[in-house]
């Protein structure tokens, strides 16, 4: 059998044309799939400086070479596009079943171009792609949308869709599948800008693997390793619902818009407290972890709220941001975000930003539609979630994200806008976990913990070496290790959590070889090289858009205001040597002092086609 490099579907919504194309073998060898395919095609097909919400932007939705197979935790789906929040590279990852179903209809990815002249949705099957009118779906939330399409196309249908937030171009709107989201970077707004409400796939399970026998054997080995792994067992029990126990004890649980690192009353929001509200579990295709923990509120003002979450980031977004300890409010806010199609991290961060401005008198009741945004007021927080998604009143301003909202408000509000490159920070305080922080600063998508998660700082991981979480330039090697490692694992597209389940180093490459028929993939050194190649091409995308060293910065607050941790270590920490860190990071990456990939590095990685675009002043 020949190399199995995969096929993709190109849909032009302006013309209504659809076309199936094959991925060239050399692209498969160089980029493997998933995130690698995403940046390769986005880079080569997008002109610089296109409007992220304009007709010329492209939306790429991908699975990976292992999607839909018997292996566990390898059927994630990913969105690659140009971000309306940052104006740079966007990558966002989602779960549930859609990644597998996209494979079952025969595709490893879809490139969506142009803009429909009315709301539409795509229906994919083995027979091809049809563009349907979505006038009746426009305005519906994600739950109603998915139910309607499932009723229409049958139970063997899975989909991704946007909610009202995506339709209204909220800059951090999410794309939703079942109750899992590709939350970050505003990919839902890009989908909404194309008048595309949903993509549904109907198919029975069918797969093409290069060597099915070898794959099946490796898959069994993977299952054994995972089931015997303690990290997996813990993840199955808790998901991420008790990560806040750790981060709060470390003093890196951001509170009051990143001014404190511990929350007063934290004992009310522990994983054990969430356990009391748990009603069930849900998971992604072919994953036994079922790490999504569902919660229902039975009493009080949020009685009836039900969410297939919240997980750690969302717990933080709706507690620490507004200094609330109501876990019931977090369930209600999470349910709303999933229904309306919002990224919980940016939504919570934007609300926390507004609360600080209210505290400082920069915003008053006259600006907030009468809402009293006092810390601890979780009812106003839940109201704001709706207002943002529907762009009502002050929600219209906050729907722009903290960077743009601060620029609009002025009055010194810029120091309260906690973002990198326009993407709001997630739930790890950079001054107390600096490896994590510098990952935010240098990530091409902006402040994402998942771009290069520092397990060394947060959980004491010892691979490749332990970290001192208050060290700065000394940890540049760890930031690179975490970022490159994430990149090659997301060619799978593997679940980021499964990296700790004891199978990736020994089996992932062999599985790729069995799936694709490309021997190099069984060499882990080669996988690391592909990870570096992906990182450099994503960086080159941003350089072409005008990004450089000055955008690789943490928010001013982290550089100038001491962290208050209350009782944890790290009181008074600031980020002292960002410039020294960047010098070291760029040097280790083989980049120039301006933060551009050097010609030598690009040639070494086989990215010669980028060289002409790097003719910016270096």
């Amino acid at each position, binding site marked *: 059998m020949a190399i199995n490099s995969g096929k993709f579907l190109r849909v032009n919504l302006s013309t209504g044309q659809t076309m199936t194309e094959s991925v060239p073998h050399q692209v498969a060898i160089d980029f493997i799939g998933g995130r690698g395919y995403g940046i390769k095609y986005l880079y080569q097909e997008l002109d610089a400086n296109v409007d992220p919400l304009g007709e010329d932007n492209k939306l790429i939705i991908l699975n990976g070479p292992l999607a839909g197979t018997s292996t566990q935790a390898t059927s994630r789906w990913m969105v690659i596009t140009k971000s309306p929040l940052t104006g740079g590279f966007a990558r966002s990852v989602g779960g549930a079943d859609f990644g597998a179903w996209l494979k079952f209809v025969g595709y490893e990815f879809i490139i969506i171009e142009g803009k429909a002249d009315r709301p539409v949705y795509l229906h994919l099957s083995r027979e091809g792609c049809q563009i349907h009118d979505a006038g009746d779906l426009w305005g519906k939330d994600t739950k109603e949308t998915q139910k309607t399409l499932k009723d229409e196309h049958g139970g063997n249908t899975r989909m991704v869709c946007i909610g009202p937030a995506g339709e209204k171009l909220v800059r951090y709107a999410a794309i939703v599948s079942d109750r899992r989201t590709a939350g970050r970077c505003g990919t839902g707004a890009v989908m909404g800008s194309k008048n595309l409400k949903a993509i549904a796939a109907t198919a029975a399970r069918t797969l093409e693997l290069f060597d099915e026998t070898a794959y099946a054997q490796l898959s069994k080995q993977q299952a054994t390793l995972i089931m*015997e*792994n*303690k*990290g997996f*067992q*813990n*993840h199955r*029990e*808790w998901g*991420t619902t*008790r*990560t*806040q126990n*750790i*981060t709060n*004890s*470390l003093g890196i649980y951001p509170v009051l818009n990143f001014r404190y690192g511990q929350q007063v009353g934290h004992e009310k929001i522990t994983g054990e407290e969430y356990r009391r509200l748990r009603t069930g579990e849900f998971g992604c295709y072919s994953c036994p972890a079922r790490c999504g923990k569902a919660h229902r509120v039975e009493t009080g003002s949020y009685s009836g709220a039900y969410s297939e979450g919240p*997980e*750690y*980031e969302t717990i933080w977004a709706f507690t620490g941001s507004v200094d609330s300890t109501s876990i019931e409010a977090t369930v209600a806010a999470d349910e709303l975000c999933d229904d309306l199609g919002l990224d919980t991290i940016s939504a919570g961060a934007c609300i926390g930003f507004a609360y600080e401005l209210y505290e400082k008198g920069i915003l008053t009741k006259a600006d907030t539609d009468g809402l009293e945004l006092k810390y601890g007021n979780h009812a106003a927080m839940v109201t704001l979630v709706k207002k943002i998604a529907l762009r009502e009143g002050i929600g219209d301003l906050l729907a722009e994200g903290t960077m743009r909202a601060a620029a609009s408000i002025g009055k010194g509000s810029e120091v309260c806008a906690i973002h990198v490159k326009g993407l709001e920070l997630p*739930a790890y305080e950079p001054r107390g976990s600096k490896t994590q922080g510098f990952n935010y600063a240098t990530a091409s998508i902006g402040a994402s*913990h*998942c771009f290069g*998660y520092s*397990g060394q*700082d*947060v*959980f*004491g*991981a*010892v*691979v490749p070496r*332990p970290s001192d*979480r208050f060290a700065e330039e000394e940890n540049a090697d760890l930031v690179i290790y975490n970022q490159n490692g994430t990149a090659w694992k997301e060619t799978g597209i593997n679940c*980021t*959590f499964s*990296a*700790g*389940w*004891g199978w990736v180093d020994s089996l992932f490459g062999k599985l790729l070889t069995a799936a694709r028929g490309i021997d190099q993939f069984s060499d882990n050194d080669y996988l690391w090289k592909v990870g570096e190649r992906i990182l450099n091409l994503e960086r080159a995308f941003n350089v072409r858009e005008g990004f450089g060293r000055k955008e690789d910065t943490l928010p001013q607050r982290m550089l100038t205001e001491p962290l208050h941790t209350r*009782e*944890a*270590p790290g009181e008074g920490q600031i980020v002292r040597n960002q410039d020294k860190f960047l010098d070291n990071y760029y040097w280790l990456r083989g980049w120039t002092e301006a933060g551009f990939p050097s010609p030598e590095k690009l040639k070494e990685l086989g990215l010669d086609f980028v060289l002409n675009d790097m003719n910016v002043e270096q």
Partner: protein
Amino acid sequence: MTTKVSAAINIPQFFQHLVDGVKVTKTGGRTVGECLDELIERFPQLEAHLFSGDGKLHGYLDVFINGKSAYPEELSKPVADGDELHIINIIVGG
């Protein structure tokens, strides 16, 4: 008579506020369990943070010896001269 070994336990950052900032301590334990018992003798406040009520290491903790997990033997896993032990939290992200 059995001879004690000389190994090192690296105390993770998330426990350092409980041990006055001590990062590494020597141990003579011949198993992971004995090493942790010695650690608790020196820092009794760690006991509840390391062990659940049934005497097992908490489900979210693991001990690595020279970079490799001690699970599933865990507390009975032998420790040799010169070994480096790390206590890690096996929650993976959030």
